[in-house]
């Protein structure tokens, strides 16, 4: 897909936090495959490379799918919030609402053969990689119908056939894993890339720089994506990082700073990064994004930031609102249509929850399955399996 279009006839100077200006190229609707050119909210800032163009080609169908997907993700996270408060979800639950544009934009730029690996804020990324809602809710509630059979929980969502490698609880540990995925891709020469995602808190982990060094040395197709929501749990980025320009932290590795609340900027950046990584090795993307919820359900989210800040971002930069305005201004959908989609999505989520609630808890014998491959379990056998079988505690 061509990266740059005749951007000169797209107007309006862009000020940050302003949603995309309507284009004079807007036509009256229906043909959903007509390409529309959209400008990202702000230009990309680059480090050690040439930034891609601000003009992104899209289509009405894509705009609609972005809206629906993000609305679904938003609803899913809100529903998870209420389930947690109803004590149906226990333990840790990290919600992604506000950051949906990153998941949706990234997915639009890549294929299912490319790998994504992320940390514990993984519900929406799992969904975008082909997961379904019933699996999500069942896993969150610890039921057998979950994608990890109820044994993983909120922080351990995986989908092998979708190229989604999780779902990791320890901050930063997924980045070396991600570089390993990129290594395997290079080893099998299959022209795919890996997106290893982490947050601004994890950006200070040593293993990240170790992995980046190895990835740059061996020319691995690894793309490190920093989802900078400006708070590492309760610590603001300026209190945790001497240099909060995460896209520059790679030094010799090129970097790009992207407005993570704009799905098209994300899509453009990921496309650019994929091409770059396949030719030149690793690149860092910093997605400037924001989470409305606290770090997790046990964090109110308001002790280290003001409610005004949260509602301010929600008003000016909300990713779903941006798409809604685009849809309306390009006259692709009407207000009522969009409201209908939201209602439909809500219903879908509610149905999924009730279906997930019907699934039963895992059987006690499942405690020992999948510890080892081949059903080895935790029992020790001797060479002659017909003889005494002693069980270890």
């Amino acid at each position, binding site marked *: 897909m061509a990266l740059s279009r005749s951007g000169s006839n797209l107007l309006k100077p862009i000020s940050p936090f302003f949603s995309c200006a309507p284009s004079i190229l807007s036509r009256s609707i229906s043909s959903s495959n007509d390409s529309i050119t959209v400008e990202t909210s702000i230009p990309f800032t680059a480090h050690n490379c040439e930034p891609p163009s601000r003009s992104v080609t899209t289509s009405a169908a894509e705009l609609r799918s972005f809206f629906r997907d993000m609305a679904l993700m938003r609803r899913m996270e809100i529903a998870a919030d209420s389930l947690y408060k109803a004590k149906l979800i226990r333990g840790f639950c990290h919600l992604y609402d506000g950051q949906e544009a990153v998941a949706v934009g990234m997915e639009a730029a890549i294929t299912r053969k490319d790998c994504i690996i992320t940390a514990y804020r993984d519900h929406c990324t799992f969904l975008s990689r082909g997961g379904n809602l019933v699996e999500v809710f069942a896993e969150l509630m610890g039921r057998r119908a979950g994608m990890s059979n109820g*044994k993983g929980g909120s922080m351990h969502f995986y989908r092998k056939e979708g190229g989604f490698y999780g*779902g990791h609880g320890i901050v930063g540990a997924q980045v070396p894993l991600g570089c390993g*995925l990129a290594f395997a891709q290079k080893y099998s020469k299959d022209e795919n890339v890996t997106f290893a995602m982490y947050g601004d808190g994890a950006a200070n982990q040593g293993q990240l720089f*170790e992995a980046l060094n190895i990835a740059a040395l061996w020319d691995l197709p690894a793309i490190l994506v920093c989802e900078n929501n400006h708070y590492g749990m309760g610590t603001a980025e300026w209190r945790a990082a001497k240099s909060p320009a995460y896209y520059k932290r790679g030094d010799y590795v090129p970097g790009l700073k992207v407005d993570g609340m704009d799905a098209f900027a994300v899509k453009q950046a990921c496309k650019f990064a994929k091409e770059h990584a396949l030719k030149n090795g690793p690149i860092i993307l910093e997605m400037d994004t924001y989470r409305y919820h606290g770090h997790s359900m046990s964090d109110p989210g308001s002790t280290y930031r003001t409610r005004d800040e949260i509602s301010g971002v929600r008003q000016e930069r909300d990713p779903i609102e941006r798409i809604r305005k685009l849809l309306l201004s390009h006259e692709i959908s009407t207000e009522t249509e969009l409201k209908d989609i939201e209602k439909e999505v809500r219903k879908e989520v509610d149905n999924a929850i009730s279906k997930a609630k019907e699934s039963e808890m895992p059987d006690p014998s499942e405690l020992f399955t999948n510890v080892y491959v081949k059903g080895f379990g935790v029992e020790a056998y001797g060479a002659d399996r017909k003889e005494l079988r002693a069980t270890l505690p």
Partner: protein
Amino acid sequence: MATLFQGLPSSTAFSSSNKFNHAPAPTSFSERKSSIVTVRSDARWSPVLNSATHKPQRLITNAVATKADSSLASTSSKPGHELLLFEALREGLEEEMERDPCVCVMGEDVGHYGGSYKVTKGLATKFGDLRVLDTPIAENSFTGMGIGAAMTGLRPIIEGMNMGFLLLAFNQISNNCGMLHYTSGGQFKIPVVIRGPGGVGRQLGAEHSQRLESYFQSIPGIQMVACSTPYNAKGLMKAAIRSENPVILFEHVLLYNLKDRIPDEEYVLSLEEAEMVRPGEHVTILTYSRMRYHVMQAAKTLVNKGYDPEVIDIRSLKPFDLHTIGKSVKKTHRVLIVEECMRTGGIGASLTAAITENFNDDLDAPIVCLSSQDVPTPYAGTLEEWTVVQPAQIVTAVEQLCQ
């Protein structure tokens, strides 16, 4: 003659302490007893006579199994070829890399340098830089990278230059390597092999003499094996690479230059099986890795004193081969565990608990466990000798146990 002891990595700092050779039958020895070979700690293989005169003054702390005993367990066919333990590891590794293109090795100095203990020597020129990878000194991340690569289907072998360095990668080994198969509901397999030399060497200092089997043993989802002879080193290496589970293969710094005869034909050993080194009647001695040789030396003394110990090299540290161990306990009713791990929370401690729980009715006496002292390994030679279990202590323990 000198060629028998070739292959010592002379250019590394560790090499000076690795002179631990077991002389086969050269004609250069002026005097040779029928099946007994004595190896001395300094490995100067001047005739056996000298060692006999030195014996009362100096404890021989680094004995090696007699040829007769090792051949019982190690080879079945007389024709075969002789090699050193690190060469056996290399042979196993090379065969597996030829057989399966998904096998790759990553570690510090494994490629162009040939491996700090020469286990991977020549493999980089043979298989290329993408299959034998030199990593920077970043254990945490390259272990993580190996695990990530394994999630997609590659079979990396991650080498820690010294097992102690893998402590830096403990998070990756515990959380990702051990747990991913479980937390993903079986979606991902992690067929990695993590290997490296550990154990108390020759005055290497506290940080380079660590026994990590005690730290790794509680990680669910991994298997641990310890090799002790060239025969089982090659067999276990091949089995570990073929296994779908993550396997940690513990080698010992002082055993790399052990020489023995192994079969020419291909063989793979079972990862969960223990090895019967010497069948006996009076007491079961359970051991692994280098302590096997201390036990075998003590066994000679014990036999002379009229005892008949049964020596089992447990090989599989996680899970224990309770079948073989159980059969032995039922026969002898007395157990002595000799290990190089620390006393607190070591393999011996877990083994004691496992045997007591499962075979308590068959025991005539409490289990005795001889382990290393709970101290950082000192540098001074004499102190270092006393950190680990010596054959004399084993003899005393058996005598007390059998009263």
